[in-house]
């Protein structure tokens, strides 16, 4: 298959060898699981259990609510100890609601939905329902409810499902291990997803630095002519949806559109395996593979981890830390989140836990920009990071927006390469956040203004009607006008409340 070049990108020190030869092992069941209600993009799930209640493995404990949401299930059997606030696995360290589950050690399954044996021929609705019910979200890290991305074929003509096995983040090898050890499940899940999407073919893009995974996947896909396993060059951020699709098809996703608009939907390989589990075995998403790595971890590993396990347990399972790490990171080092502490729970989107020493982080105090232009050459989005940063530094967000700051992926290439160690992504994240807030405020005040104007117009109309009625009354001495004056106050009262709701 012909491949196509993608713009820019970097070649960081991958250090995958720290954990890539470690087979996936299961984490011993922790004493407590803290299962967050909000582990995905969209609305948090709504609690379905109460403290004291016994739940079984795979039982839904919180259901999705609203159009973008996902349910959550008990990773093992046990008793709901409490519903309390725990530290979020996020830089803010803000509290989030979690179901605290004390496992009873029995690991007793709930009654699971029946396997869908004819998954490649059933109506897509069945697959959608199953994926939604199983609480599957994008396991590459974004944790977007997968069922929504399986609907993209409804209004579009899709050609292919692109399965993302690039795993371009340094250190991480959970996808690599999964492809090596569960290739058949990944391929089957992918074919089910392609069916649900109405896409004819599956292309699995895997970076060339994973020869074993490529081999295992090629073997697993050998009997399926609709599945192509395609090595792609090692080039960060190859795993970005738009860039992977471009590398594989040569098609560039237009700005403000989805890859689906050019015929391809991208799902992660681990998501495909989860879909296989849900469809073929009825099992919901209750665990995932997490890479624990970094030179400050005694014995890096790939761990199949129940959702809700404390990070501290995973680190302990890896023999603990070596010294005091310079940084603790959730996810990959390029786009991951800083860990507020070791008590935060693993969520569905947690692909890695990294403990990095000072040499690995390579941090240094930021210096002045010397305009070397490296950030411009390597930006995979064709942006001008140094200029955007200059605008943001003077709080000229409009200037930064004109240069396309909202199209920045936050892939981190520019910050990584900057010889002056300027935290460019920090600037862009700040600008993106502020612009979003401003846009929300603008929309809100616009709405308020519209409401106020509509109200005034109504009042004027009512006033005019009143005057007209009065005039009629005086001339005809009739009581007709009373009806108009009677309705006006009601209207005003009900309308006046609206802006505050918005």
């Amino acid at each position, binding site marked *: 298959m012909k491949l196509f070049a993608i*713009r820019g990108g*970097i070649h*960081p*020190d991958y250090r995958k060898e720290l954990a890539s030869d470690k087979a996936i092992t299961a984490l011993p069941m922790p004493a407590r699981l803290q299962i967050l209600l909000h582990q995905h993009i969209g609305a948090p799930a709504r609690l379905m259990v109460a403290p004291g209640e016994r739940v079984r493995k795979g039982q839904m404990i919180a259901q999705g609510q609203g159009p973008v949401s996902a349910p959550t299930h008990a990773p093992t059997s046990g008793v709901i100890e409490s519903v309390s606030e725990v530290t979020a696995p996020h*830089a803010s360290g803000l509290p989030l609601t979690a179901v605290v589950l004390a496992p009873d050690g029995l690991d007793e399954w709930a009654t699971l939905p029946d396997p869908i044996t004819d998954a490649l021929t059933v109506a897509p609705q069945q697959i959608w329902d199953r994926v939604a019910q199983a609480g599957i979200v994008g396991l590459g890290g974004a944790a977007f409810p997968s069922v929504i991305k399986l609907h993209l074929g409804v209004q579009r003509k899709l050609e292919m499902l692109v399965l993302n096995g690039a795993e371009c983040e*340094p250190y991480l090898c959970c996808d690599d291990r999964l492809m090596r050890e569960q290739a058949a499940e990944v391929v089957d899940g992918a074919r089910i997803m392609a069916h649900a999407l109405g896409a004819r073919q599956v292309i699995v893009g895997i970076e060339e630095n994973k020869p074993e995974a490529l081999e295992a996947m090629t073997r697993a896909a050998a009997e399926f002519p609709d599945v192509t396993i395609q090595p792609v060059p090692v080039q960060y951020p190859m795993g970005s949806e*738009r860039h992977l699709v471009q590398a594989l098809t040569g*098609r*560039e996703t*237009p*700005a*403000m*559109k989805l890859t689906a*608009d*050019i015929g391809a939907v991208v799902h992660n390989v681990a998501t495909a395996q989860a879909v296989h589990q849900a469809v073929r075995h009825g099992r919901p998403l209750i665990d995932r593979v997490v890479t624990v790595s970094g030179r400050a971890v005694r014995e890096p590993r790939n761990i199949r981890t129940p959702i809700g396990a404390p990070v501290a347990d995973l680190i302990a399972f890896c023999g603990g*830390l070596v010294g*005091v*790490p310079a*940084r*603790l990171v959730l996810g*990959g*080092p*390029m*786009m*991951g*989140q*800083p860990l507020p*502490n070791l008590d935060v729970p693993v969520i569905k989107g947690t692909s890695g836990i*990294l403990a*990095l020493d000072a040499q690995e*982080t*390579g*941090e*240094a105090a930021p*210096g*002045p920009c*010397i*305009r*070397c*232009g*490296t950030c*411009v050459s390597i930006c*995979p*989005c*064709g*942006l*001008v990071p*140094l200029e955007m940063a200059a605008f943001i530094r003077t709080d000229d967000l409009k200037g930064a927006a004109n240069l*396309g700051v909202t*199209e920045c992926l936050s892939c*981190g290439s520019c*910050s*990584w*390469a900057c*010889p*002056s*160690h300027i*935290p460019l*992504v*920090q600037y862009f994240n700040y600008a993106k956040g502020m612009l979003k807030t401003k846009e929300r405020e603008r929309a809100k005040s616009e709405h308020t203004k519209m409401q106020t104007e509509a109200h005034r117009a109504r009042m004027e109309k009512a006033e005019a009607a009143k005057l007209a009625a009065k005039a009629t009354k005086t001339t005809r001495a009739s009581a007709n006008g009373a009806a108009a004056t009677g309705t006006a106050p009601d209207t005003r009262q009900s309308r006046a409340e609206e802006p505050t709701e918005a």
Partner: protein
Amino acid sequence: MMIETATTSAPYTHSAASVQKTMNTVILALVPATAFNLYLFGWPAMFLFSVTLFSCVAMEGLALLIRGRRLLPTLGDSSAILTGWLLAMTLPPWAPWWTGVLGAVFAILLGKQAFGGLGQNLFNPAMVARVALLVSFPVALTSWVGPHPLFWTGTPGFQEALNITFGGQIPDGFSAATALGFVKTELSRGIPVSQSMGQLPDLMDMGLGLRAGSLGETSLVLILAGGLFLMWKKIITWHIPAAMLGTLFVVATLGHTANPARFADGTFHLMSGAAFLGAFFIATDYVTSPVSKSGQIVFGCGVGLLTWVIRSFAGYPEGVAFAVLLMNSLTPIIDQYTRPRRFGRTRRGEPLAPLGDK
């Protein structure tokens, strides 16, 4: 266990690049050409080189003190040393010591720190100093000597050299003209270029650097080697040097074809003066050249074209420094018009048409 929580977003890993490393690599690339020329022009060149370097670092320190900044982080980035080094390379090798000191004032204080320090200056500091000195002290800045390698017979010894650099007197019989200067002077006397060029050093000597010229500009071979080293190290790319030298060669060749008596040929323009030094080490200065590759090509072409125009029509025989400064002033505008195409958008910034082939 206390682990400091990051206050900035990812990435939490970094390339090995640093400003200091970049500057030091450029300095390293300059070493062969500089060492050869210091040998070629002897003790006076060494004195001037040392004075210029020392003055630039001293001026940087002074500016930092005045601005109330910490000395070490900035002095440690080697940028003042590099500026001093480049400035020294463009001075006549036997120029008096005060040209180095005054040059440092122009380069560091006025050219760099007055704009806010590293990264803030619009103009190449070394070229600001070079041009300011040339305009203010034309005699001192155009007194050239031919090669007088160290320890050769007839070469000034240490004591004599001190007199040259610090006494300000070049002894009789040493002065020589640069190739560009010679051709220009002859032309002004009515002798056509085609004739005067016959009396210049041959191509071999020009390439090796056995000729009169600025302290560090004469050895094309070693400058080219340094430039290629920088490209290999990915400090610079081919865009500016190729665009500048290519344009200079093409316009000079065209001019020469049209009127051989009036205009020197392309090869002569490439090999004389500061064309090579300028193309690889001066026009490529990060701070004062455009950031995008297409912008760098525009910039390089501009420098090449202006160099030829100034050499051919202006009062000065050499034009690289002026050309670089003029193009420096256009850098912000070039930057604005040569931004890369954004992903998913046309050159004009409109979103691409969905499912259409680009």
